[in-house]
């Protein structure tokens, strides 16, 4: 303003009246005004638009067009010129002229006459005001220019941003608070296969569907302006025109644009990825199904034996959580020290592990583990190992079953005692892994009473005892064979459970009892709910108290010999079809075993009967032999006796006829000689015929005799031994007679040991003789009868013929050998036979001479 006042103010005077113009010039000259003039309105406007004036004085009475008011209106209507102050001068102010002037935009109005000072003062005021206004206008103009420049810059920036956004590979869009799409970029249009005009202005939900899309946008808007974090929405299906629907991940971020809340949505097309993932997922699911369907527990462990992953079977077997007992037990089993795992993690080897656990129901399970390293990338040592756990209890069961049957058959050979056998059978039913029932009862058919009688029962008598026993079994790890062996060693005692059923008997004509029904129908009966099963009587329920049980018949050779009853009344383990099958199979074996034992028992009885019958027969035969010999003797003796008697009587009648007496006595003498001879022949009657010598193996003969009699000896509790000298050469003997010799000696020895003892048959080469020896630990031979030992008809036995040793001696003599006997009463006896290894002339001669008479 100071500058405006100081400088000369340019004034334009617009007047066609010369006087007025001069008057104004005079008034203003010398007061720092530079005066310019215009004589017409057009001229004034031209000047004003070309040059700026600090004041324009306009004569209101200006003639022509434009007139004064028009000039004012024109100036004030032009923004660039509007700042210039306009003052009207007029000669007379009539009507509403003043109002019209101000209405046209005039700044001042002076009416003549006015004082000279008044014009100058008013002019100065107007100039100052105009200048101020002009500065403001200029200022505003410059500002406007700057704004325009900024606007251009902003436009550039926007274009730049849009270019960036458009060239971004990511698809994105901006939404308003209502979810209306305000902006989309190219990639998003590509994604949607749509034109911009089809997208902008529409709702996002028309293109993308997700349950919580609207909610997310709402949240994003709420968060906008605060610290809004972008949130992600995965796997949203997008609707694309022309293309298959796309699967997208959306990132929703709040933006605050010029105070307006908006939402930026970045769209990521993950269709291919999702499909790949889905394919992988499907594969994984399949694999998972396989892994889970596997009847094997799988888990992944790290070097510290932590379980990183496990399949469903694992959960099923060992529990899902670490604190479950099964899981704990599993980890316990894998808790070998590092050195055990060294081959797995260090050398990449596979290791095996087998272990056994008892389930909560007391059932033993067998597991095998295969621990295989999982290969790391880049050939580093394995960090993890896969543990494959298989339940081999079934295999173990089968092995167990075979073992069980073998045990049983082995036991059969050793133990035929019925009661013990019953016990063993039930032991197998209860203690074996294969069957493993809690309790078992054995009923046997009594043929005499025609009833099934309780014979044996095995199992705990209470739940407490059951768990104690399982605990012991688990810790001691005793096998079934151990138990059976133990049973065989221990003196037999009645199991406590048996006391509960001892004496129980079910008549076979009462089929209402399930035990009887089992026997009659010859097939297993399985009862799963005894309280509701009509096959079970109230009495049975009370007595056995088992809710679920199985009864199987013991069938041997088509005949039912009994019934086994088994239950799991303590563990409550369900009885499966497999159990029943196995039990039936076992029952068939057991039935045979029982049958065998019974048969054996009967056999024992029969053998004993046979023995007594045989004794009788032997006695009768002996009598018959005596009779036969008596007949022979009678025939041979009667004739000479009759002859002798006849002639003796004849002599008595006529003793005087000496010739006749002589003749008769001669005959009598002949006949008595004949009788003597015959007596000798009586002995020969029981004697063997002449030996037929052949060079044979004496050992073989001795062994054959030994084998023939060993069973009988064993039956009489005699321990028999064979001690053969295999360097013994062949010996010339009559084989049949040698058999008779050895047999006789064996019989004598055996008879001397009625309460059992030991017996040895021995051969040995003694120089030029073969030695055959039978030694016993029998009663011995008293010295007083020693010299009569070999006499015919001499015997100390009740049933002896007295010919055994006599014949033996004769045979040995015939062979040119000799027999020696040494005995001590109460200690035993040794008979030793010596036979020449070479045929001796003397022996043969003796034989031939005697053989001639032996034939009679």
């Amino acid at each position, binding site marked *: 303003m100071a500058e405006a006042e100081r400088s000369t103010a340019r004034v334009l005077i617009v007047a066609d009246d010369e006087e007025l113009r001069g008057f104004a010039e005079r008034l203003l000259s010398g007061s720092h005004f530079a005066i310019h003039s215009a004589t017409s309105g057009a001229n004034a406007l031209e000047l004003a638009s070309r040059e700026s004036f600090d004041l324009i004085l306009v004569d209101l009475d200006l003639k022509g067009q434009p007139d004064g008011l028009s000039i004012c209106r024109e100036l004030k209507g032009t923004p660039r010129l509007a700042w210039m102050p306009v003052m009207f001068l007029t000669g007379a102010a009539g009507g509403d002229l003043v109002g019209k002037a101000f209405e046209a935009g005039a700044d001042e109005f002076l009416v003549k006459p006015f004082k000279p000072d008044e014009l100058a003062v008013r002019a100065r005021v107007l100039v100052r005001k105009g200048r101020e206004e002009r500065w403001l206008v200029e200022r505003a103009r410059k500002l406007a220019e700057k704004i325009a420049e900024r606007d251009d810059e902003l436009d550039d920036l926007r274009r730049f941003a849009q270019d960036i956004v458009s060239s971004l590979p990511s698809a994105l869009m901006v939404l308003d608070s209502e979810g209306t799409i305000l902006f989309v970029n190219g990639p998003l249009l590509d994604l949607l296969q749509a034109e911009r005009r089809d997208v902008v202005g529409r709702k996002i939900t028309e293109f993308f569907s997700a349950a919580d899309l609207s909610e997310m946008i709402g949240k994003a808007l709420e968060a906008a302006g605060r610290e809004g974090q972008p949130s992600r929405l995965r796997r949203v299906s997008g609707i694309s025109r022309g293309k298959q629907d796309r699967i997208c991940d959306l990132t929703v971020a709040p933006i605050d644009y010029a105070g307006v809340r908006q939402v930026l949505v970045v769209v990521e097309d993950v269709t291919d990825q999702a499909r790949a993932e889905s394919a992988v997922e499907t594969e994984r699911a399949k694999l998972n199904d396989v892994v889970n369907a596997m009847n094997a527990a799988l888990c992944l462990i790290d070097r510290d034996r932590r379980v990183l992953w496990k399949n469903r079977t694992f959960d099923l077997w060992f529990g899902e959580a670490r604190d479950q007992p099964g899981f704990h037990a599993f980890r316990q089993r894998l808790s070998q020290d590092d050195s055990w795992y060294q081959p797995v993690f260090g050398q990449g080897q596979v290791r095996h592990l087998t272990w056994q656990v008892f389930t909560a129901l007391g059932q033993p399970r067998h597991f095998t583990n295969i621990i295989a390293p999982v290969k790391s990338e880049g050939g580093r040592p394995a960090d993890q190992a896969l543990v494959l756990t298989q339940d081999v209890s079934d295999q173990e069961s089968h092995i167990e079953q075979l073992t069980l049957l073998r045990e049983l058959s082995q036991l059969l050979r050793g133990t035929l005692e019925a009661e013990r056998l019953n016990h063993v059978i039930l032991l197998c039913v209860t203690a074996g892994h294969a069957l493993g029932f809690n309790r078992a009862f054995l009923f046997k058919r009594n043929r005499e009473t025609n009833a099934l009688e309780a014979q044996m029962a095995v199992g705990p008598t209470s739940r407490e005892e059951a768990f104690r026993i399982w605990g012991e079994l688990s810790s001691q790890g005793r096998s079934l064979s151990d138990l059976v062996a133990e049973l065989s060693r221990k003196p037999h005692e009645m199991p406590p459970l048996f006391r509960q059923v001892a004496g129980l008997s079910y008549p076979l004509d009462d089929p209402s009892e399930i035990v009887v029904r089992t026997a009659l129908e010859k097939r297993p009966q399985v009862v799963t709910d005894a309280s509701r099963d009509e096959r079970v009587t109230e009495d049975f329920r009370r007595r056995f108290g088992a809710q679920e049980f199985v009864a199987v018949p013991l069938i041997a050779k088509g005949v039912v010999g009994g019934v086994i009853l088994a239950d799991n009344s303590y563990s409550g383990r369900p009885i499966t079809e497999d159990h029943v099958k196995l039990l039936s199979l076992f029952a068939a074996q057991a039935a045979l075993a029982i049958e065998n034992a019974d048969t054996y028992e009967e056999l024992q009885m029969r053998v004993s009967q046979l023995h007594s019958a045989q004794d009788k027969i032997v006695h009768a035969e002996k009598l018959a032999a005596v009779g036969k010999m008596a*007949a022979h003797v*009678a*025939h041979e*003796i*009667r*004739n*000479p*006796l*009759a*002859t*002798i*008697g*006849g*002639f*003796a*009587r*004849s002599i008595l009648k006529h003793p005087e006829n000496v010739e*006749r007496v002589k003749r*008769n006595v001669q*005959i009598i003498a*002949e*006949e008595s000689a004949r009788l003597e001879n015959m007596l000798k022949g009586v002995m020969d009657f029981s004697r063997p015929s002449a030996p037929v010598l052949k060079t044979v193996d004496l050992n073989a003969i001795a062994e054959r005799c030994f084998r023939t009699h060993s069973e009988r000896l064993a039956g009489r509790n005699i321990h028999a031994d064979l001690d053969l000298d295999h360097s013994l050469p062949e010996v010339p003997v009559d084989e049949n007679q040698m058999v008779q010799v050895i047999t006789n000696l064996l019989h004598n020895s055996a008879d001397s040991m009625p309460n059992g003892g030991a017996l040895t048959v021995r051969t040995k080469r003694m120089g030029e003789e073969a030695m055959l020896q039978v030694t016993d630990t029998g009663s011995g031979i008293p010295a007083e009868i020693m010299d009569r030992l070999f006499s015919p008809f001499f015997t100390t036995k009740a049933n002896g013929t007295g010919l055994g040793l006599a014949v033996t001696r004769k045979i040995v003599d015939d062979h040119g050998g000799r027999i020696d006997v040494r005995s001590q009463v109460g200690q035993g006896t040794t008979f030793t036979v010596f036979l020449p290894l070479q045929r001796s002339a003397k022996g043969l001669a003796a034989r031939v001479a005697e053989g001639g008479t032996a034939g009679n």
Partner: protein
Amino acid sequence: MARLLVVDDDKNLRLLYEQELVEDGHEVSLAGSGPEAIEYLNKNRPDLIILDVSMPGMDGIEALGKILAKDKTMPVILNTAYSTYKDNFMTWSADAYVVKSGDLAELKQKIKEVLKSRGKDA
């Protein structure tokens, strides 16, 4: 008096029978075996035959059959050491059965009875 044939394999027994029966007034012929007796019977007809049962070769039972086949009316006394021969039904066809003894009284009594029953005086 009668003609008797004694058949026995025992020579001294034949001598005894001959001596005793001759002294009783019989005419005694001797045969040492069954075939010998048959041969004798081809030419002679004795009133009575005393036949030993136990003989080697053809025994008395067999000889009896052959004798009776030739002449079923021939009186025969079986003379044996065995009482058991009485059980053989063939012996039933003999007229008498005498067990050998040093005392010939029974034999002589039987001879008398058989001869008497056949109308011959002893």
